[in-house]
């Protein structure tokens, strides 16, 4: 295994930030009014949809750390499984912050996707 631990931590950090980006995007999206023009203007004061802006910012930050992490000598076969950890974090946040039910269907679908992402990483040596 040639991938340095520092690169693993970068990718882990990226998927962690990314999963929170999803949380902010979701909570911002709930305040979006109908129509594209109103995307960053919220229903209630302070009217600027800072949740949405934070979500977009976290996605950008996440992609920055992701790119730093997958630089050589980082190997995708090691790093992709860590990306899919982000999906598992998100399931937890959705349960905690939005009280979304965790059904058997969601666990099964997520399981298939996580194993799939691991396999794509294994094939990218």
């Amino acid at each position, binding site marked *: 295994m040639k991938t340095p631990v520092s690169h693993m931590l970068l990718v882990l950090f990226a998927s962690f930030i990314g*999963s929170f980006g*999803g*949380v902010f*995007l*979701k909570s*911002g*999206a*709930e305040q*979006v009014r109908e129509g*594209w023009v109103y*995307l960053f203007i919220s229903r209630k004061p302070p009217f600027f949809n800072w949740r*949405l802006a934070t979500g*977009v910012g976290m*996605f950008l930050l996440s992609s920055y750390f992701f790119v730093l992490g997958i630089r050589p000598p980082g190997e995708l076969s090691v790093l992709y499984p860590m990306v*899919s950890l982000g*999906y598992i974090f*998100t*399931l937890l*946040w*959705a*349960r905690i912050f*939005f009280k*979304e*039910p*965790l*059904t058997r*269907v*969601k666990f*099964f*679908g*997520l*399981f*298939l*996707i*996580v*194993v*799939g*992402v*691991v*396999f*794509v*990483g*294994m*094939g*990218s040596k």
Partner: protein
Amino acid sequence: MLNAAVTDSAQISEKPARRQPVGLVFCCTILGAAAQILMKTGANQMTQPGLLGMVTNLPLMGGYCLYGISTLLLVLALKDGELSLLYPVIALTYVWVTVLSFLIFHDSINPWKLAGIVLIVSGVTVLGKGGRR
């Protein structure tokens, strides 16, 4: 399933016009993959480093624009759908990128990648079917 509990009464009256959140995220992943391919094309033909080199790089900027549109679609999808259901669907991007980089950059494809694609697609299908109930 329990979406109705989250939406307020004003939105419930508009229920027939409800969007398909999983379909929106599906479009979002196609745009995201196209963005990655454009950014890779841009990175390959990058001549001068630095900000000026990036801004004048058309494929790279096109890639960023597509990412922007894809994020807008994700927001619209999240407005109506559950985060725990929609976020994993973003993994479809890996499928499109693997297929497109095989077609365009002639990257290798092997049994691992093929199995991964099949698994991701079936996972998304499970989530899509489960979310429609």
